[in-house]
C-alpha cells in the first residue's frame, strides 16, 4: 500500500464502492434495529394508539360530522370515520418512523462511530443511505402492522390490487422523501433529545390538514394553511387510492412535494455530513 502516485488514475485500492458500502451500512442499521426493539415498538405503537383513540373515542362524533356527498354511502359515524382517518394514521406511521430515523442518526453522531467512518476510505454517502434504506424497510414493516390493525378496527378500503400497489409505491416514495429530511434533522440536532423533538412538526402536520377532519370545517386562516401544506395532497392522494376515489390534481401536487422534500433533504443532509466537523 505504499503508493506514491500523485497524479494519474486512482489505484485499485482507492476506488469507491458506494453500493457495497451502502449495503454494509444497511446491514448495520437493520442489526441495530433488532438489538433495540423498544424503539421500533414505540414507533409502531404511536400510530396504533392514535388510531384506536380516533376511531373509538372521537370516531362516533367526528364521523357524524363528516357529512357531505363526498363521503356518501356511509353506514354510520364510527365506521365512516374509520375509513376517513385511516389514511392519516397510515401517513402518521411514516412520520413516526422518520422521527426514529432522526433519533438514530443523532445517536450515531454522539457516539463517535461516525467520526471513525469519516476517517475511513469509504463512500461517505453510504453512512446516510444505510440509514435511509433501513428506515424505509422499517416503515414498510410498521405500515403492514398499522394497516392490519386499521383493517381490524373497521377500515374498509375499496381499492383493488392496482390501487393497493399504487398506494404502496406512493407510501414508499413519501417515506423516502421524509427520511432524507429526517436525516438532515438528525444531523443538525446537537443531542438525541433535540433529534426526537425536531421532527415533531411532521407528526403534527397531518392534524393541520385534511388528515383528521375535512379542511372546510376549519376557520379561514387555518383552512388556507391546511389546503396548501404538503400533507393535505399527500393524504388526499393516499385516501383516493385506497378508497378508489378520484384524486384529481392532488396526485401530481403530492409527487412534486415528495420530489422537492427528497431533493432538499438529500442535499441538506449531504452538505451537513461533508461539512468538516466542528470541534
Amino acid at each position, binding site marked *: 500500500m505504499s503508493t506514491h502516485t500523485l497524479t494519474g488514475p486512482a489505484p485499485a*485500492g482507492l476506488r469507491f*464502492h458506494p453500493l457495497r458500502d451502502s449495503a*454494509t451500512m444497511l*446491514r*448495520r442499521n437493520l442489526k*441495530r434495529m433488532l438489538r433495540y426493539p423498544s424503539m421500533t415498538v414505540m414507533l409502531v405503537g404511536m400510530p396504533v394508539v392514535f388510531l384506536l383513540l380516533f376511531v373509538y373515542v372521537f370516531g362516533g362524533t367526528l364521523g357524524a360530522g363528516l357529512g357531505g356527498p363526498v363521503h356518501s354511502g356511509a353506514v354510520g359515524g364510527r365506521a365512516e370515520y374509520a375509513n376517513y382517518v385511516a389514511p392519516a394514521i397510515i401517513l402518521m406511521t411514516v412520520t413516526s418512523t422518520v422521527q426514529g430515523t432522526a433519533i438514530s442518526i443523532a445517536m450515531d453522531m454522539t457516539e463517535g462511530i461516525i*467520526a471513525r467512518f469519516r476517517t*475511513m476510505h469509504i463512500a461517505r454517502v453510504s453512512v446516510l443511505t444505510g440509514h435511509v434504506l433501513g428506515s424505509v424497510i422499517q416503515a414498510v414493516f410498521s405500515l403492514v402492522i398499522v394497516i392490519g390493525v386499521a383493517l381490524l378496527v373497521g377500515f374498509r378500503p375499496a381499492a383493488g390490487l392496482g390501487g393497493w400497489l399504487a398506494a404502496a409505491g406512493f407510501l414508499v416514495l413519501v417515506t423516502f422523501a421524509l427520511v432524507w429530511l429526517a436525516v438532515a434533522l438528525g444531523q443538525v440536532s446537537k443531542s438525541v433529545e433535540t433529534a426526537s423533538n425536531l421532527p415533531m412538526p411532521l407528526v403534527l402536520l397531518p392534524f393541520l390538514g385534511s388528515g383528521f377532519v375535512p379542511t372546510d370545517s376549519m376557520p379561514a386562516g387555518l383552512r388556507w394553511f391546511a389546503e396548501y401544506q404538503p400533507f393535505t395532497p399527500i393524504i388526499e392522494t393516499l385516501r383516493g387510492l385506497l378508497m378508489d376515489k378520484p384524486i384529481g390534481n392532488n396526485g401530481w401536487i403530492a409527487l412534486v412535494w415528495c420530489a422537492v422534500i427528497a431533493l432538499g433533504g438529500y442535499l441538506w443532509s449531504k452538505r451537513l455530513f461533508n461539512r*468538516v466537523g466542528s470541534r
Partner: protein
Amino acid sequence: MTTRQSSAIAVTGLRKSFGDQVVLDGLDLTVRRGTVFSLLGANGAGKTTTVKILSTLLSADAGEVQVAGHDLAREPDAVRAAIGVTGQFSAVDNLLTGEENLLLMADLHHLARGEGRRRAAQLLEQFDLVEASRKPASTYSGGMRRRLDLAMTLVGSPQVIFLDEPTTGLDPRSRRNMWQIIRDLVAGGVTIFLTTQYLEEADELADRIAVLDHGRVVAEGTAEELKRRIPGGHVRLRFAAPQGLDAAMGLLGQATRDNDALALRVPSDGSLRSLKTLIDRLDDRAIEVDELSVHTPDLDDVFLALTGDSTNEKVTTR
C-alpha cells in the same frame, strides 16, 4: 525538511483557530516512518485538534501537511486509505457485538468474507476479546472497549495510526496492556502518532516527543534529550528537628531549604559515589537524617519547566 520521503507525517506551519481562540499557532512536526511520535500536552494544549486535522476530520486554516506521502488538502482520500484513528472517545457501535464491529470494518475495507472472518478472529485473539466477542460492546469495560476500538482501527492494516490519549481513563493494568499492544504494532512496522497527557507514557513508548503548549511546540527530542535540557537532579533530605536542618545547611552550603517540611534539596547527579560522599559528610557531623530520597529529572520536571515558565512569564509581565 530533507526527510520528507522517509517521513510518515510532515507538518509545517499548521494553524487553526476557533473564532478568536487560537488553538494551533504554527505547528511544525516530522514523524519518521516506523516510529512512535508522542505529542505531549495538558488538556486544551491542542492535541486533539492536531489529530483531528491530521486524520482529515477538521480542516486547517493554514499550513502544509503530508501524511503517508499524500498531501492532506489535495488527496484526503489517499490519506484516509493509509491511516487508522483511535480517538479519545470510543468509536465502536455499542449495539453490535465485538465480533460484529470487527466484521463491519472488514466489510468496509472490502475484505473477502473468509478473509474478513479470519482477520476478525485473529484480532479478537490478539486483543484478548475472544470470550466477549458475542456480547454487545455496550457491556464492555473501559479497557475492553479501548482494545476493541484499536482492533477495529487495525482491520484495514493502516500504515499510520493516530492514537488520541489511548489510555486516558484506563486502570494501570489495562494501560500497561495497551502499551504492550502499541510496542507490538511498532515492531510490525507501522508509524504511531500518539497524544498523551501522561509523561510516563511518552517516556515508555515514544521515540520522539514534542511538548505542546498553547498550540506551539515548546520542545522536541527524545525523552533523554528533553531530560538533559533541564537540571533537576537532586537529593532530598528530611530532618526530624530544625537543628538538623540548620546543621546540614551549614555543612552543605549550596542547598535549598524548605523550612515547613524540614527538608533540604541538595543538587546531585544521583550517582552512588556522590551519595556516599554526602552520607559520609552528614555522618561525620552526626547529623540525624529522617529520610533521604534521590530525584533524577523526569519528564514531569521537563514538562513543568517548559510549560510552567510560560505561565509565569505571563504573570510577571502583566
